């Protein structure tokens, strides 16, 4: 973006859209296990996700942009996760939170857990941890914002 002398901002339509989109990512109210407690902590006053424009946890997938898969995805839950993802409108993004969602975690050798939610839905940002701290999830959100704006981390 370039700032003109007369206080005029010139940009492309695309950049403006990306800027607006990345600063109002509304997550879905969707918690599966203990990671959801940390997700709630992110939304609460100490970590405060609203500094990044994501404080509005929508109760309907039709109104949300981001799915934070927070917690163990069991095989029985996997078709439901897929259906919720399908009901979200484009553009939609997914953050995989916690090692259970990444590759099964402590349930890796179990009988009932999906070994990675990326076998069910496409994932944009992976946040490892058991559970990840609120700071880690905020870092994941900022990474997603950079990804939406087309910036690189390095």
């Amino acid at each position, binding site marked *: 973006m370039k700032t003109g002398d007369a206080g005029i901002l010139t940009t492309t339509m695309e950049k403006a859209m990306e800027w607006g989109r990345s600063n109002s990512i509304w997550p879905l109210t969707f918690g599966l296990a203990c990671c959801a407690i940390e997700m709630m902590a992110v939304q609460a006053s100490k970590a405060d996700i609203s500094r990044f424009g994501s404080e509005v946890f929508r109760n309907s997938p039709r109104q949300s942009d981001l799915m934070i898969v927070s917690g163990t995805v069991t095989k029985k839950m*996997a078709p439901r996760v897929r259906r919720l993802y399908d009901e979200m409108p484009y553009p939609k993004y997914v953050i995989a939170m916690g090692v259970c969602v990444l590759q099964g975690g402590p349930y890796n050798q179990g*009988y009932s857990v999906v070994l990675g939610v990326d076998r*069910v839905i496409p994932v944009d940002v992976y946040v490892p941890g058991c559970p990840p701290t609120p700071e880690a999830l905020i870092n994941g959100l900022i990474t997603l914002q950079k990804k939406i704006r087309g910036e690189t981390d390095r």
Partner: protein
Amino acid sequence: MVDIIEEPVGKDKRKIFRVKKEDLIAAMKSFFEQGFDHLSLITGIDRRDKIEVVYHLHSVERNEYIVVKTETINDTVPSVTSIWQSADWDEREQYDLMGIIFEGHPNLKRILLPEGWSGFPLRKNYDLSKVQFVNMDESGNDYASFDPGDGW
């Protein structure tokens, strides 16, 4: 008449009683009449050659717990749903995960896993190498299959 072997008190100070499978209903009825009106939980233990079934009973009035153990070699145990109604779901859970068949249960079917799941996951001889998948049809019914292409 009912053959009850009493064991020394366990670590958690709960009295343990061993009952033969045939005497289970009679013994449980007498415990119920002694004031143990709450069936706290039912567990199963796989000892490879036999299955051990453990009942934790609680007396609400006296705040007292006892443990009743029985064992079976052919996976069948009489149901105690006629004594405690709450045994219904506990026994269904044990059937679902341990494969214990409770004779006389009014509705013995899987409670956690979907219908069509093969095997009982908490048994020692459960085959983990055969991965099973769960899918959902339009009306929300689950079904299990071995086909990975049938997945999500």
